[in-house]
């Protein structure tokens, strides 16, 4: 589904991501772990298009996307959330989610004057779908609230809701559990499971190894911009090189 080969990104003199090759098969929940500064978020930005690679190839469902702009990658079915959530704070929760529907007729300026009924009908259908997603992610009571009032954990849920509205086939989640209270965390884990059962694939960056162990079939470990190890969570967390990287990072 997603194929990286030799993906490299340099910032000045530092290699944030250094020759990473990865294969993410469809229909799986894959984990990406590593100590702080390992290059995980940078790799996400390269996959989603907010950064362009210095070298290397990125293929999504057979298509070369290494130099496609982020909006085109989203339209191809590649969704992402941000490590620090970026809600549209001045908009309501419902509008945040509505915005994310792809290829809306009402996004064509002239359609709003020439075909207002068609736009209104589409918008009503989108509202129904957005409400389903919002309810599914336990934000139903907040649908009319401005996104600025949401807690950190609720913002993570809103990011997921927005991405789902765009009907992605692969979702990149950057630390979905960070700063989330234990109850909400269970909700998030459960929802990811259910979405996976509905056919959405995930690539998850997470420091919470409990979440990774519970959700992910395969885990990739990054350190210092390089891919260090890959395998099932139990094996990888026992790997001496991985333990060394984490301890080295902490020291």
């Amino acid at each position, binding site marked *: 589904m997603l194929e990286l080969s030799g993906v490299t990104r340099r910032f000045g003199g530092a290699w944030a991501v250094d020759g990473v090759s990865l294969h993410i098969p469809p229909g799986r929940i894959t984990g990406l772990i590593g100590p702080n500064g390992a290059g995980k978020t940078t790799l996400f930005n390269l996959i*989603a*298009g*907010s950064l362009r690679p210095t070298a290397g190839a990125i293929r999504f469902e057979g298509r070369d996307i290494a130099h496609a*702009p*982020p*909006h*085109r990658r*989203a*339209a191809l079915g590649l*969704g*992402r959330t*941000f490590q620090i959530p*970026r*809600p*549209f*704070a*001045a*908009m*309501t929760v*419902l*509008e945040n989610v*509505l*915005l*994310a529907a*792809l290829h*809306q*007729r*009402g*996004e*064509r*300026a002239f359609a*709003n*004057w020439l075909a*207002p009924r068609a*736009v*209104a009908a589409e*918008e*009503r259908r989108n*509202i129904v779908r957005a*409400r389903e997603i919002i309810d599914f992610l336990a934000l139903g009571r907040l*649908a*009319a609230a401005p996104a600025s009032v949401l807690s950190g954990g609720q913002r993570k849920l809103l990011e997921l809701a*927005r*991405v789902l*509205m*765009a009907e992605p086939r692969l979702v990149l989640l950057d630390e979905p559990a960070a700063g989330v209270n234990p109850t909400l965390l269970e909700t998030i884990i459960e929802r990811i499971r259910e979405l996976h059962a509905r056919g959405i694939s995930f690539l998850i960056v997470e420091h919470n190894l409990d979440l990774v162990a519970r959700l992910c079939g395969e885990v990739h470990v990054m350190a210092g911009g390089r891919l260090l190890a890959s395998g099932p969570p139990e094996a990888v967390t026992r790997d001496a090189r991985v333990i060394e990287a984490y301890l080295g990072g902490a020291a």
Partner: protein
Amino acid sequence: MTGLASYLCFFATVALTYGVAVLGLNLQWGAAGLFNVGVAGFAAVGAYVAAWITAAPAPAHWGGFALPIALGWAGAMLAAAFAAAIVGAATLRLRADYLAITTFGAAVTLQLVALNATALTGGPFGIAFIPKPFESLADRPLAFGAANLALVAAVTAIIFVALERLTQSPWGRVLRALREDEAAAASLGKAPDRFRLQAFVIGAALMGLAGAMQAQFFGFIAPDNYLPVLTFQVWVMLVLGGSGNNRGALLGAVVVWGLWTLSGTLLAAMLPGAWQARGAALRLVAIGAVLAGVLLARPRGLIGERATVSRHVVHTGEQA
């Protein structure tokens, strides 16, 4: 009495033509955050194109097709939109300040072209005898003034409603998202350049229409009308009225045009003849001072931006 009434009609007519330009700028700046410092250039394109299309043939300038005024206004909007598409396509994907530099440069260049391409534009003498709407009423000043005011008021109302719809539509929602967080909007499949370019082009078309309407109501245009001071006026109108709010845009146009006219009359009456030329500069200072005063009391302008919600969300009662 009829003299005053027909003067007020003319004043309101001109104020509303400015209002249309301010509505265009509000779409660009208020909704899309595009810093256009070349309003005068787009107004000039509209004015000259409308003059070429509607005026009678004359040896002093190009064009003169004597076509209906409606065609002249449509042509003006298309030409200004085309100019904006070129400027926008070249600069919108670059850093934001490039748009300011480019629009300013383009407007100054166009003004110089209007001044020097004499065969096309009539040079410094401009184009005269541009037909006015309702010319058959010209011998009854009040009816003539009222008819012109009704026409420009109707045009302004249509544009106002169309823009309100647009800002409350899914299209407007994307612009609001882009203004808040471009990276987040792009990650949700929205092409930033596409939406910005559309807002820029539609806004410029309105500036072109404003230029065309002014040409038609004054009956005469010259390069001097399209100096950067026109851009300054339209910006002051928007900022004073309330950027991000179409009502504020129109209110700002009426208030600032009133102050501009009034200060011109007062300075002409008060200053001795030798000082008249310098009086023009004093007018700018006076308007700037008023703007500063208003912004001190009301930082968001007379009517500030209010939270916009997509209209269908409201209509279906989902906002309980």
